[in-house]
């Protein structure tokens, strides 16, 4: 039984169906990614898992327990923490206070302190700027803060919504190395949502491709990297050999 099992969920914004029957599995200890263009519904899937939105249909099971329809704080308590799109840090709290808010539900003070040191070790800048206001950090630093804050919750499953958004390439690389370390060292299972397919596919083991609210392809990332459609539409690799078939004429086959 996988750690997280999503079955046929449908999620709406008012009358708009954003997620049209998505199923996916995340095995314990794994890194899984969902690729998709703008508006494909990636964030909506994560919001539905963390309980910020409720699915109209379908089920979500985490550690063999139904969590769809549960309140977000109960889901955090069960061990799922999300790093939301756009960081969503607390602007007028210090960096340290932001991190401690990640540990809001924890009662174990000494372990929390140890985890603070672990986070400081991953992101030394957060230690150096400990008493600075979150809102005065740069965009990249805020992303680190958002990830560090989530690690402070010591989740079993970490949901990451486009951690590469708006960051310089070297910073993206750095942050993804840390995500890998968190997975290795903290044994945290990771579900990563990305538009930057190249970096997501090189980090994750399993990948899902999401288009217009539906999963159109599921495979190991190794295979996905070789897939013609992924190559053309997500990795931006042009096929030179097919002369005459113009880009806008080519249809995705998803085979």
């Amino acid at each position, binding site marked *: 039984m996988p750690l997280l099992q999503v079955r046929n969920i449908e999620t709406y914004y008012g009358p708009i169906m954003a997620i049209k029957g998505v199923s996916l599995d995340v095995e314990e200890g794994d890194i899984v990614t969902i690729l998709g263009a703008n508006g494909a519904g990636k964030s909506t899937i994560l919001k539905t898992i963390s309980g910020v939105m409720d699915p109209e249909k379908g089920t979500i099971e985490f550690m063999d327990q139904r969590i769809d329809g549960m309140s977000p704080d109960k889901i955090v308590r069960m061990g799922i923490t999300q790093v939301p799109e756009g960081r969503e840090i607390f602007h007028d709290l210090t960096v340290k206070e932001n991190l401690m808010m990640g540990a809001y539900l924890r009662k174990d003070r000494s372990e929390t302190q140890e985890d603070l040191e672990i986070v400081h070790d991953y992101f030394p800048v957060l230690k150096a700027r400990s008493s600075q206001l979150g809102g005065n950090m740069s*965009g990249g630093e805020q992303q680190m803060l958002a990830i560090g804050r989530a690690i402070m919750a010591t989740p079993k499953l970490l949901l990451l919504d486009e951690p590469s958004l*708006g960051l310089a390439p070297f910073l993206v690389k750095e942050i993804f190395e840390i995500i890998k370390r968190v997975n290795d060292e903290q044994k945290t299972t990771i579900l990563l949502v990305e538009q930057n397919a190249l970096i997501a596919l090189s980090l994750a083991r399993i990948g899902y491709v999401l288009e217009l609210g539906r999963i159109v392809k599921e495979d190991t990332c190794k295979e996905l990297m070789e897939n013609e459609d992924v190559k053309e539409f997500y990795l931006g690799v042009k096929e030179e050999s097919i002369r005459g078939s113009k880009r806008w004429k080519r249809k995705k086959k998803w085979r």
Partner: protein
Amino acid sequence: MELFNEIIQTLLSGVSIGCIYGLVALGFVLIFKATEVINFAQGEMMVLGAFIALTLINVFGFSYWAALLLATVGLGIFGLILERLVLRSLIGEPVFAIVMLTIGLGYFVRSSVSMVPTWGTDTYGFTTPFTDKAARYGELVLSWEQLAIIFMTIALILILFAFFRYTRMGVAMRATSQNQLAAVYMGISVNRVFSLTWIISAAVGGFAGVLLSPITFVHMNMGFIGLKAFPAAVLGGFSSIPGAIVGGLIIGVTESLAGVYLPIGWKDVAAWIILIGVLIIRPQGLFGIQEKKKV
């Protein structure tokens, strides 16, 4: 010397009434920051606090300190009940509807007070440890009733400051007022934060009512002082505890100086003139911050 003493006494009475404005303003600000609602029944929290203390002292023979404590706690419980029974069911309704509801609530509290046997529409008083006591420095006479308001306000502010700064729940409340969605992602129960916000604001209102009682006496309309706490809150930027208190002090002192040195009538408009003046120069208030967001 004569003039100096007069000025000091005027300032003292201004600062002490300013403390009350500040406490009521603080109640406005806490609720507004958390829920974007302006609670126009904040003044009525004072009325209830004052009447509870009055009854405890005059009818049941409690000491002033016990009555102060119980009135504060009692109003906290009232705030909790109010939030649970009335306001929670309105979450998601337009803010103005909830604001209208608080206005109605103010009426409701006032008329309920007037119907309680032994409360009614009369004016009452109770003795405090500071009644008719004064600190004298030669010619200068400072009323302990006014000094006590200032010291107790400082004490309450320090407690609130420590709570919002150093406790997990206090930081979580600040966090929620800054970014509710992020707070949800942290597992903070926003409902609990809202409850606690109403509890604290109502308790602060009750506390202020007991402090104010020796000055204005206890009356069902003593809560109208909240009308002057409103410009105090706006003056302070409607965003922070220090802002609310400083706003209250400015209004209190101006009003008191205007009452002594300007023709009759200026006292009541002084607060609004100051407010308009400040808003022309700094539309966000003295302590207000312009919203900024990094992309």
